[in-house]
């Protein structure tokens, strides 16, 4: 046995801290929660309100612009049709809305963070271990405080998804920018380019394929969170899986699971397509 004299507990202080946050700053979190909820509901309202063929057209157009390959367009069409045929259309749109919001916020956080990491060695050294923790900490651990602060439902689900899914985007944005040929950056500097001109005109465009790979990873990881998210009240395909488990309805669970897989494949191929076409633009290197 480890000697008891050396025992320290962080339980009490942490609990008190979260408690005081809830008591004293509850209104702040409520405000954040309300704003986020409105955004999620708005996206959901659009996706669920659109007729199915409109969503089809949007996805097929995205697939075409991403890859310029008719084969991908056909694949996406078949897969979306399968989702509808399995009766999962509405649930899929709910899940998609959560994915979109979580990915959007991840981009808004992840890309600027990645740029900062690429520019500052100190920031890198501080942030990388934090990202490791975010990716390895079991998600239930931060779901508990998220529920306490934001209540049950879609908002903590989106936040938990972001915590889990944003690290690859930060890492790959950082990597992409640091991999830009230093002579190209030096040349831009030598011709008098200002830091923003170099960032937006040279570094970010050249890092785009790597950043797109990061976005792809982020979306995939976000999708792997949908079942966990449904445990705290997010609806959609995850809830259906959960339901299947609870009622030992294997078929129902599998159907919803297939829906998640299809959504993953569609989003994966489209984002990969965009990454590859931006790679091609600069000469397959």
């Amino acid at each position, binding site marked *: 046995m480890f000697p008891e004299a050396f025992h320290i507990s962080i339980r009490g202080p942490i609990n008190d801290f979260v408690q005081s946050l809830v008591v004293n700053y509850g209104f702040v979190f409520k405000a954040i929660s309300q704003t986020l909820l409105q955004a999620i509901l708005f996206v959901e309202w659009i996706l669920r309100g659109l007729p199915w063929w409109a969503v089809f057209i949007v996805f097929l157009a995205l697939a075409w612009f991403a890859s310029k390959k008719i084969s991908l367009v056909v694949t996406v069409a078949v897969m979306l049709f399968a989702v509808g045929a399995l009766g999962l259309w509405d649930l899929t749109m709910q899940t998609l809305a959560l994915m979109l919001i979580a990915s959007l916020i991840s981009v808004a956080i992840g890309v600027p963070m990645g740029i900062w990491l690429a520019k500052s060695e100190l920031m890198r050294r501080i942030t990388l271990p934090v990202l490791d923790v975010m990716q390895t900490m079991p998600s239930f651990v931060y779901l508990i405080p998220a529920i306490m602060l934001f209540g049950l439902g879609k908002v903590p689900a989106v936040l938990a998804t972001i915590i889990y899914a944003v690290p690859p985007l930060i890492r790959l944005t950082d990597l992409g920018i640091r991999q830009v*040929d230093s*002579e*190209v950056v*030096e*040349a*831009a*500097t*030598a*011709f*008098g*380019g*200002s830091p923003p*001109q170099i960032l937006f005109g*040279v570094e970010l*465009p*050249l890092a785009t394929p790597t950043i797109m790979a990061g976005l792809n990873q982020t979306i995939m990881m976000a999708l792997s969170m949908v079942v966990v998210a449904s445990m705290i009240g997010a609806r959609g395909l995850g809830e259906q899986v959960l339901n299947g488990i609870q009622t030992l309805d294997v078929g129902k669970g599998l159907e919803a699971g297939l829906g998640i897989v299809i959504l993953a494949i569609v989003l994966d191929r489209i984002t990969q397509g965009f990454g590859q076409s931006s790679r091609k*633009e*600069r*000469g*397959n*290197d």
Partner: protein
Amino acid sequence: MTDIAIRNVSKIFGGNWKAALAMTKDGADKGAILAKTGCSVGLDNVSLDIPGGRVFVIMGLSGSGKSTLVRHINRLIEPTSGEILVDGSNVLDLKAKELRDFRNRRVSMVFQNFGLMPHRTVLQNVVYGQRVRGLTKADAAPIGMKWIETVGLAGYENKFPHQLSGGMKQRVGLARALAADTDVILMDEAFSALDPLIRADMQDQLLQLEKNLHKTIVFITHDLDEALRIGAQIAILKDGKLVQVGTPSEILNSPANDYVARFVQRRAGAGEVQHA
């Protein structure tokens, strides 16, 4: 025409630069300083006068500090001590914004591995300096086209760098420097990555430009033949120290020390074989 004066410039790479700088003043050599302080000496008290309107060659082997020296002129590298005067004013006094303006309008640069932006077309690369200056695409395009024609790349303006050969890429690099319309052009081993025939072509083109444009061109090379061919004056660096400055005939006929003499002899030896 712009004169450049480099005054007692030293550059020490490493954290303990104060100790290392003191050691260079006592005349310690590079190896001893590295062993004692962990710093490497890039440049050791170099002073040079680069007269305007000609090609001035800085020659040295790799590690001699020649690329480091040329980057001091547009402050891509900050000196540890010393001054760099361009037309009498000290470049080190420039604030960030002034420095960007100075780089944009006074000094342009050509790089060994071209430094072209792979996501921009030839024309977009060539007008980069003008675009940074704030010119619109439409205003910059004719300037770019003029220089693309001058370097013989007409018809390639909408190609991307990866579609060009090495020699063509460096012509783009040269056109970019010329389109920036600066008095000074720094060329860091600009022709070293090219094969011999194209290299000779580019040297001819550079001499032609010197004659027509009267720019101050600082040319870095490790090749004595190239230095003799294009340089109005040549400075030779070794281990961060200036060994000799002179016209090509001065270098050939009265080498300052054994190091320079060995260069010259090797060249003479090579010449004999060619003519045998």
